[in-house]
């Protein structure tokens, strides 16, 4: 009763529960919204003068700046897709609450604790030209040539899979175990094999979750910074957009340009998220409106 009594606008301001969000809101406005607007305005005040848009014009006219968008997408999209596509069958396999599931999730959590820097260091040691990986391949005569998995595109992609997969897996496992087990069981009684149970019961139900998992994994992969520097070739094949932003800010001290790059980065990243979540709506409404089609 008490919970719904404060309906009028006046009573609302006297409701202490409404004020409990105030510190969080003030913090977000001061530390997130204000700096963001400040950065947006700053990006229209180029250091070297010129028009308001000259930072953005410069970005899209300089090869090693605008190319970073493509380089970042070329790393982040495949890494996210690989992570999601492997995580779905593995999570589906482990959907039942068994000791097996507990052990598997614990083991898969370990790579989360590594952090990008340690993964970079470990990969330099393990996947390096003289590391165990190369030695094993050569001993087993699987691949004889020089193995180049570090300081290039492949190195960064592998590190994104190692760091991103456990996260994608845990998210998707969480969505799959959230589905009422009665539903696939009902499908099984009607004669659906595991594949059809997955295809017609589980998949439609987790599609919204998959879209969300894709977005969250993509955010992580898109902000690839340490691994692109440590494991890639930061001047060439893995010169991602965060490197360009960092260089503008902390090597050239051009905060205006850096803000412009950050804004472009945010726009591209949010663009992908909007497309994916929009596609989710298409998928999600399909079965409802389509009915028995």
């Amino acid at each position, binding site marked *: 009763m008490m*919970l719904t009594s404060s309906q009028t606008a006046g009573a*609302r301001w006297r*409701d*202490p*529960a409404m004020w*409990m*969000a105030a510190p969080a*809101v003030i*913090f*977000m406005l001061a*530390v*997130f*919204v204000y*700096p963001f607007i400040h*950065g*947006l305005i700053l990006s229209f005040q180029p250091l070297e003068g010129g028009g308001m848009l000259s930072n953005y014009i410069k970005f899209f006219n300089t090869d090693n700046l605008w190319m970073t968008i493509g380089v970042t997408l070329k790393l982040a999209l495949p890494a996210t897709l690989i992570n999601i596509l492997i995580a779905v069958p*593995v999570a589906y*396999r482990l959907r039942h609450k068994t000791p097996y599931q507990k052990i*598997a999730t*614990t*083991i898969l959590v370990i790579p989360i*604790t*590594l*952090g990008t*820097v*340690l*993964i970079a*260091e*470990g990969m330099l*040691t*393990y996947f390096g030209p*003289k590391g165990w*990986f190369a030695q094993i391949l050569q001993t087993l005569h699987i691949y004889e040539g020089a193995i180049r998995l570090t300081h290039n595109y492949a190195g960064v992609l592998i590190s994104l899979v*190692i760091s991103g997969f456990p996260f994608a897996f*845990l998210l998707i*496992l*969480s969505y799959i*175990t*959230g589905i*009422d*087990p009665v539903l696939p069981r009902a499908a*099984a009684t009607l*004669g659906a*094999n*595991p594949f059809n149970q997955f295809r017609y019961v589980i998949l439609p139900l987790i599609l919204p*979750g998959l879209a969300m998992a894709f977005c969250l994994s993509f*955010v992580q992969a898109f902000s690839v*910074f340490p691994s692109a520097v*440590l494991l890639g070739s930061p001047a060439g094949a893995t010169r991602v957009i*965060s490197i360009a*932003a*960092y260089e503008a*800010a902390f090597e050239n001290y051009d905060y205006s340009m*850096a803000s412009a*790059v*950050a804004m472009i980065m*945010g726009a591209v*990243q*949010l663009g992908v*998220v909007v497309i994916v979540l929009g596609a989710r709506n298409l998928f999600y409404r399909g079965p409802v409106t389509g009915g028995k089609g």
Partner: protein
Amino acid sequence: MMTSQSISRQPAPKRRTHWASRAWSGLVVGLMTFFLINVGLMIASVATNSVAKRWLGTWLPNGWTLEWYSAAWQEFQLGDVLLVTVQVVLSVVVLSILIGVPAAYTLARRNFRGKKLLTGLFLLPLMIPPITYGIPLATLMYELHLAGTLPGVIIANLLPALPFVILVMTPFIEQIDPNLESAARVFGARTFTMFRHVLVPLLAPGILAASLLVLVRTIAMFELTFLTAGADTQTLVVALYYSVFAAGVRASQSIDAMAMVYMIVTLIWLLIAMRFVSPTQLVSRVKEHPQT
């Protein structure tokens, strides 16, 4: 297994399903094993290198020593770095809980105009990469001379932690019966008293889980600390980055020793966190006890 029971009246499809699903799960398990073996060997090679005397292109190093750990401790002033890390992480955990849990309560229990906007505001920092909002934030902090100070690093790390706490705690609060709150009010408790004496004890497991997860996330948060920290306000992960970045200046063994310290510190906290919250409940906590 329940599939084979339920289709047992149809022998033909059963056999085909059996064969296909065997092959499929073999593939899945094989893929996973390949992934885990490589990650395991990767960790093992860091561990091996951290206790190696010299290790150049052979299967195993030519001698073992623990001196890299003490070398790393001195070279990287690991004592100072760890102290900064502990200060930053603890402050972020305490502040994010103190500010975040009440805000989660408002979101869970009240409906008001602009609630969607507010939820969006709390969701946005999790939906864009830290570098994107970190650079404007760092720029502002340099103007305000906050960058490089401990409060600056704490504020920057609080930014993703606070929305995380709010989003994790809101479903926790929603599943608590509102009648308990009403009962407390019948006995004359005001909102804050009710919150402290009824909700907080009930939420204790959730709060504990959220703080442990924030702790793990903050230890691992590289970008924001990297952008805002000065020479003496680096956390462990940023110090580690600089040492790998300047590879050649330091022996790779002492870098690996520090990497092991980092991993063990994070792992301990994550395993503790997993004692209290199953990672499978992070998103949906509904079907824990299926009602069949």
